[in-house]
């Protein structure tokens, strides 16, 4: 049993069987396609319909229902569309491409939309213009733009996709192809078949050439042409093999592309989950726009991934993507790109202007001739080190209830002072959309260097308060040092402030501050000069062993400083130098004039890795740069000692005669005994606990933070600053 239909075929009323109708309508559809670009298409079809109606009616006789054979007969009379010839150039290709000709009423008649490369409108290979045509875009420019953007966005990983399509997608060679390129959506062959077909065509062409040659050749040449055909066949076979292999690789590349994009997407979701609390501080946008931007970025990443998946599933499994899906995706993608490009300038603007806030640091408590600079090592990256969760603390960022604590870019510069005072200026720089807002951003950062004792304490992090924005705030500290005065940087400052310390170095290698951590530098006329760096070369005395106890007897000047190895250099006129005797015993080394005078013209430089004791009876002595566990200084006669040293535990001083000692540094305990006219000036030596006994006319000034035990007899005077608990010692205990 079959359905029947009533139709009007070119003016003839026909009652037609369902099968016959199907056949007839697909035939007419093929004619419609054939004359798609012809001017008088409707007229031609009208004429053909009329003639078909006439023929079919004529063949009916007494029957009333048109059956399939009637239609087949009429169609045979009328001929296949590609045999019509005339208007199109298609006839030449249709003979070689027998596969696409109208033969059966199966799906091949509905060639429909196919993806072709449009080589007539190509920049490289016409992939973009082909895709544009496929997606119904009027101008391939947009598709090219998308490809270029994807090329940049994926750092070039998009290029293989282009090449892949170049290989897989055949060029639109014939008019029929060009029509199909813009036609309605339809099935697509899978990748393997596509590639194979492509190579098949070449193979076939080669075979055809062989055949052609065979036909054109005379008998004498027949042998040759048979050879050509054989070669063509082998060539075709090889191509087919290569095609299969290429198809496999293409599929693998496709899977890798999809996986890569997917992995990037998942990775960025995870990064967002971890980084979400931080984003607010760093985003150039307000909260709402920040999340909009993030969503936008996900679209930019996800749409090509989804598109690729759809594309490959279409090629492989012949799944059809509804037009509205591709439409929506394309629209969203274009909107995302537009949004990204329109938001970008605002983001950039937030960083376009620079503003600064300067603050002079109060140095009123500073009294000595050496400024110490040290970094306050807040516990970023240490305190939170073991917290068992994701955080960026190790990288110097910590999020707390107060806000975002960050290690700050720190720059320290040293200049010569214009007057005879030290000056320290702290400058916070920031970015902002205007210079005013940049200044506000700089002002909002919680940061302040402080001066305490003789030390400038430089924090290495600042806090961006909750709700405020990080805008590249950075800190610069300008230190002005008066000529002839000293500055020293604690080792830890180099971790944070780096090479900017080199600002005022001269050519002397020793004066590179960053290479000489912990050294003392003097502001000279040409900038900073290392005052306690070993500078003796090979001319000095070099000992096989080290000495750490020094006995100085004589009116020469001595400088003891820390160095990697033990060296001694004696400067002065030869006749004076000859008066100096060296006596080494055990760890002790003695320099003595044997009671003679050098007339103050000899200077002894001693470089030593360690220093534990000094016994001096005259002369000017400087001790620099030591950081020892314990030390013992005995001074008598008219010895004058200047000491820049830290002694962490046990520091014993015994002063008598007219000896005077001036100390800078710090440590835990200090035990001092003074007699005669000895003077100790140690207010710049910060101790925790001091024990002082002074007799006769001795004078002592000390600085202690915790305890001070004082015994003062005779005319002596002892003063202890620093807020320590001062107790008097009983006389009889002495």
């Amino acid at each position, binding site marked *: 049993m079959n359905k029947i239909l009533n139709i009007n075929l070119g003016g003839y009323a026909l009652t037609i069987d369902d099968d016959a109708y199907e056949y007839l309508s697909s035939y007419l559809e093929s004619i419609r396609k054939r004359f798609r670009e012809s001017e008088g298409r409707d007229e031609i079809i009208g*004429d053909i319909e*009329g003639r078909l109606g*006439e023929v079919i009616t004529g063949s009916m006789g007494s029957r009333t229902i048109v059956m399939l054979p009637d239609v087949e007969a009429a169609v045979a*009379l009328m001929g296949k569309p590609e045999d*019509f010839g*005339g208007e199109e150039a298609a006839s030449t290709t249709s003979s070689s491409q027998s596969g696409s000709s109208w033969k059966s009423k199966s799906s091949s008649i509905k060639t429909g939309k196919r993806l072709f490369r449009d080589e007539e409108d190509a920049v490289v290979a016409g992939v973009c213009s082909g895709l544009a045509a496929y997606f119904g875009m009027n101008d391939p420019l947009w598709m090219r733009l998308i490809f270029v953007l994807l090329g940049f966005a994926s750092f070039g990983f998009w290029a293989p996709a282009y090449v892949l399509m170049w290989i897989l997608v055949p060029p639109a060679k014939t008019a029929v192809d060009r029509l199909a390129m813009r036609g309605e959506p339809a099935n697509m062959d899978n990748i393997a078949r596509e590639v194979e077909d492509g190579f098949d065509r070449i193979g076939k062409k080669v075979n055809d050439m062989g055949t052609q040659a065979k036909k054109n050749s005379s008998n004498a040449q027949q042998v040759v042409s048979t050879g050509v055909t054989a070669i063509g066949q082998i060539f075709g076979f090889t191509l087919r093999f290569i095609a299969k292999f290429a198809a496999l690789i293409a599929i693998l590349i496709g899977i890798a592309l999809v996986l890569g994009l997917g992995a990037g997407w998942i990775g960025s979701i995870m990064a967002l989950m971890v980084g979400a609390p931080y984003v607010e501080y760093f985003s150039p946008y307000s909260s709402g726009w920040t999340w909009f931007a993030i969503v936008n970025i996900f679209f930019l990443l996800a749409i090509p991934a989804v598109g690729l998946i759809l594309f490959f599933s279409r090629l492989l499994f012949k799944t059809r993507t509804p037009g509205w899906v591709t439409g929506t995706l394309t629209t969203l993608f274009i909107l995302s790109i537009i949004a990204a490009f329109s938001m970008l300038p605002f983001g950039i603007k937030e960083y376009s202007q620079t503003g600064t806030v300067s603050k002079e640091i109060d140095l009123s408590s500073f009294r000595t001739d050496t400024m110490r600079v040290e970094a306050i090592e807040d516990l970023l990256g240490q305190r939170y080190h073991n917290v068992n969760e994701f955080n960026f603390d190790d990288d110097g960022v910590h999020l707390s209830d107060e806000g975002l604590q960050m290690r700050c870019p720190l720059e320290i510069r040293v200049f010569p002072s214009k007057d005879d005072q030290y000056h320290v200026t702290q400058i916070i720089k920031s970015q902002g959309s205007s210079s005013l807002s940049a200044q506000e951003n700089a002002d909002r950062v919680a940061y302040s260097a402080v001066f305490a004792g003789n030390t400038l304490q430089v924090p290495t992090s600042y806090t961006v308060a909750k709700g405020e924005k990080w805008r590249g705030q950075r800190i610069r500290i300008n230190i002005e040092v008066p000529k002839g005065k000293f500055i020293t940087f604690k080792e830890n400052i180099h971790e944070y402030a780096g090479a900017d310390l080199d600002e005022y170095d001269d050519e002397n290698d020793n004066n590179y501050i960053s290479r000489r951590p912990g050294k003392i530098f003097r502001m000279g006329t040409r900038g900073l000069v290392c005052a306690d760096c070993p500078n003796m070369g090979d001319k000095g005395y070099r000992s096989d062993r080290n000495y750490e106890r020094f006995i100085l007897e004589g009116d020469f000047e001595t400088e003891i400083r820390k160095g990697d190895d033990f060296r001694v250099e004696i400067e002065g006129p030869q006749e004076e130098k000859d008066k100096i005797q060296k006596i080494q015993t055990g760890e002790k080394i003695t320099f003595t004039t044997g009671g003679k005078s050098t007339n103050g013209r000899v200077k002894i430089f001693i470089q030593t890795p360690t220093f534990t004791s000094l016994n001096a009876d005259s002369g000017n002595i400087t001790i620099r740069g030591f950081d020892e566990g314990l030390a013992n200084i005995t001074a008598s006669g008219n010895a004058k000692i200047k000491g820049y040293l830290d002694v962490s535990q046990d520091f014993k001083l015994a002063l008598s005669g007219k000896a005077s000692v001036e100390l800078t540094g710090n440590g835990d305990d200090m035990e001092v005994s003074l007699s005669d006219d000895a003077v100790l000036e140690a207010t710049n030596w910060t101790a925790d606990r001091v024990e002082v006994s002074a007799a006769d006319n001795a004078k002592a000034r000390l600085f202690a933070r915790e305890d001070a035990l004082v015994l003062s007899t005779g005319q002596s005077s002892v003063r202890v600053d620093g807020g320590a608990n001062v107790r008097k010692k009983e006389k009889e205990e002495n």
Partner: protein
Amino acid sequence: MDIENAKAQMRKGVLELCILAIIEEDEVYPSDIISRLKSNDLIVVEGTLYPLLTRLKNDGLLDYTWRESNSGPPRKYFKITELGRQFLEALSDSWQQLVHSVGQTINKPQASRKTRKTEQPPAAE
């Protein structure tokens, strides 16, 4: 296959001339043209005719009128225009020339055959 194709190409070239010649004689409707052409072996499938007619009409060489038919819907009757007539003259002149030249070239030994079938293209054989 290839010989068929070559024949079809040859026929296609002269089809316009023949159609114009048929229409010049009398007003005709397509089925008449088809039967005339078919009887002379000039076309294989009818579909070839309609695009040609449409194009000749669009070029102003032909014109048509609708006439009632007693066996079906109204039919298009074609007639030649003045332009078509001039075109036909020029075409048939050049055709005569061509037949002569081609005959001279390929049929020298059998000149008798040529004279016998002057009116028909060689492809008809």
